[in-house]
């Protein structure tokens, strides 16, 4: 990416309908990427026949990623809807490198045929073309799917617009575990409690969430099934039970238990059976995060006198220290691409996000704090979702893993924290 001036676009891109769930998150872009793909998305033919359009959501998804810049197609007449109707010269003249056109047609069964093509205006070729037969209730999901296709074709990485996020919303003394679309829309309450909830963790297939609740006057780990709404206790041993982390196979989790003294790491089957101690140390060991291959896990330990990040190779029991700079490095999250990990570093009184590469050991600071915590990476490893503070209130924020793109997700009158980015939907 060429090093251009960082764009600062203090722009509220999405304003959601007021009937949406309470504590709706709204995304603000606060910083842009160095380079962006100029793309023109033409309103689909007949799109105005439905109250909720599709191209607006596609455009919002793409520009929110920070990797695209929307080129206004208005004034190009007649408005193209099919590949053969596109005069690429019209779009090139406006600076667009890519063009999206499409149409929406009512079907006899009440569904709607939504189809689009993506064209490369420079090479003058069609890059993608898809059609979907969907109900109007599925328009939003369809728009995210279209954005995913466009993103993948133009960047080479999978799009994550169809994924979901989980987070904890605190209103007054009430705590709720919410699940929402990756753009903050369609927030649903999964768990409500009058006691603190924390550490939500998605199962690898995205159907279950493990989390910690203090409702029993101690930390207990539960697993909630999103499909059935059923909840089971994962770990309720004597002492504290916390920091759940799913193994990539979805059958086991690493957890922190104090049942045998001290905060120590254990493996446990997803049904709560087969508890097995991973290590024995006289220090704090917590905040496990599995590497992509499941063979090792990152964790926080104070065994060296200050909290630092270590890696345990499960088969051999070998432990290796990974962070050396600074006196407080915590909350490691292994990157889904296997290349490194994101974590929180304290610098003076500031808590900032950083990313470290396994191979080079290079550390890059991603944020400036002052109170950034709970990082969670997108499944394509391009973005890091985290908790920040703004005006004395918890908000969610996101930063690209190269530090260039920054977003804020703001929910009115709600303290939002502990975000967890869900897996790709298959």
């Amino acid at each position, binding site marked *: 990416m060429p090093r251009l001036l960082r764009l600062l676009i203090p722009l509220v891109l999405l304003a959601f309908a007021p009937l949406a769930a309470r504590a709706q998150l709204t995304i603000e872009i606060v910083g842009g990427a160095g380079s962006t793909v100029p793309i023109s998305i033409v309103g689909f033919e007949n799109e105005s026949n439905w109250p909720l359009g599709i191209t607006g959501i596609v455009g919002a998804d793409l520009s929110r990623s920070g990797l695209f810049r929307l080129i206004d197609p208005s004034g190009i007449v007649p408005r193209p809807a099919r590949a053969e109707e596109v005069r690429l010269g019209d779009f090139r003249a406006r600076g667009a490198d890519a063009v999206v056109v499409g149409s929406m047609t009512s079907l006899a069964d009440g569904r709607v045929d939504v189809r689009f093509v993506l064209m490369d205006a420079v090479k003058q070729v069609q890059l993608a073309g898809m059609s979907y037969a969907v109900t109007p209730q599925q328009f939003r999901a369809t728009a995210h799917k279209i954005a995913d296709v466009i993103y993948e074709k133009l960047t080479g990485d999978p799009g994550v617009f169809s994924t979901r996020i989980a987070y904890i919303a605190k209103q007054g003394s009430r705590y709720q575990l919410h699940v929402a679309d990756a753009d903050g829309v369609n927030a649903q309450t999964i768990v409500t409690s009058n006691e*603190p909830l*924390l*550490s939500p963790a998605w199962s690898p297939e995205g159907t279950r969430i493990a989390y*910690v609740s*203090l409702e029993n*006057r*101690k*930390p207990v780990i539960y697993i909630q099934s999103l499909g059935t709404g059923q909840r089971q206790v994962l770990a309720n041993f*004597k*002492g*504290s039970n*916390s*920091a759940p982390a799913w193994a990539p196979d979805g059958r086991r989790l690493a957890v*922190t238990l*104090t049942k045998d*003294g*001290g*905060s120590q790491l254990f493996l446990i089957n997803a049904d709560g059976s087969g508890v097995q101690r991973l290590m024995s140390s006289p220090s*704090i060991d*917590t*905040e496990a995060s599995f590497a992509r291959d499941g063979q090792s896990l990152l964790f*926080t330990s104070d065994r060296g006198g200050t*909290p630092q990040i270590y890696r345990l190779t499960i088969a051999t029991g070998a432990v290796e220290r990974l962070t050396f700079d600074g006196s*407080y490095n*915590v*909350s490691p999250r292994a990157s889904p691409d296997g290349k490194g990990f994101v974590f*929180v570093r*304290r610098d003076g*009184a500031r*808590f900032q996000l950083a990313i470290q590469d396994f191979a080079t050991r290079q550390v890059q600071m991603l944020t400036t704090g002052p109170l950034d*915590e*709970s990082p969670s990476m997108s499944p394509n490893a391009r973005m890091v979702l985290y908790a920040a503070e703004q005006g004395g209130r918890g908000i969610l924020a996101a930063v690209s893993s190269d530090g260039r793109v920054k977003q804020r997700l703001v929910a009115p009158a709600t303290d939002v*924290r*502990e975000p967890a980015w869900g897996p790709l939907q298959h």
Partner: protein
Amino acid sequence: MRKWISGAFLIALLAGCSSNPQQTAPVEERIPSTSTTPGGNAGATTGGTTAPGVGGTTTGSTGSANPLRDPNNILSKRSVLFEYDSFTVPDQYRGIVEAHARYLQGSRNTRITIQGNADERGSREYNIALGQKRADAVRQLMRVLGVGDAQIETVSFGKEKPRNPGHDEAAWAENRRADIVYSGE
């Protein structure tokens, strides 16, 4: 044997700490002021001086006042505050821990939970571990004094349930804390 060694080690630690009088005002405010304790005398380590009043009350099951709730009884004091980044029970709280340890020894069916807490700075999960370490420090002192593990559960709320919701040193000092809670309370 191991217990004895770790106990001796802990006592050595405590003795080492007694040369460092407490300084922060908010901590001083929390010091118990009952007549049977060393009170606010920073650095006092006279563990045995709290015995008389307590012992008498615990055995008196027919007594009208619940010693755990009697504001004039040291057993009504439940909180141990910790210094920044410290997991040693400060000297001025030893009297409280000792009183509860004696009460538990005289009432073997009584169970307590020690709830550890941390200030708001840093990772939520790491703070759960820090709070646990504080609760465990209080349990370790009770172990040394002869209370069995079956009577004690140590848990942590991390930074999730601050007693003082403020964001300054005074609030943080109050939130680096372990609370003794009796079963059924």
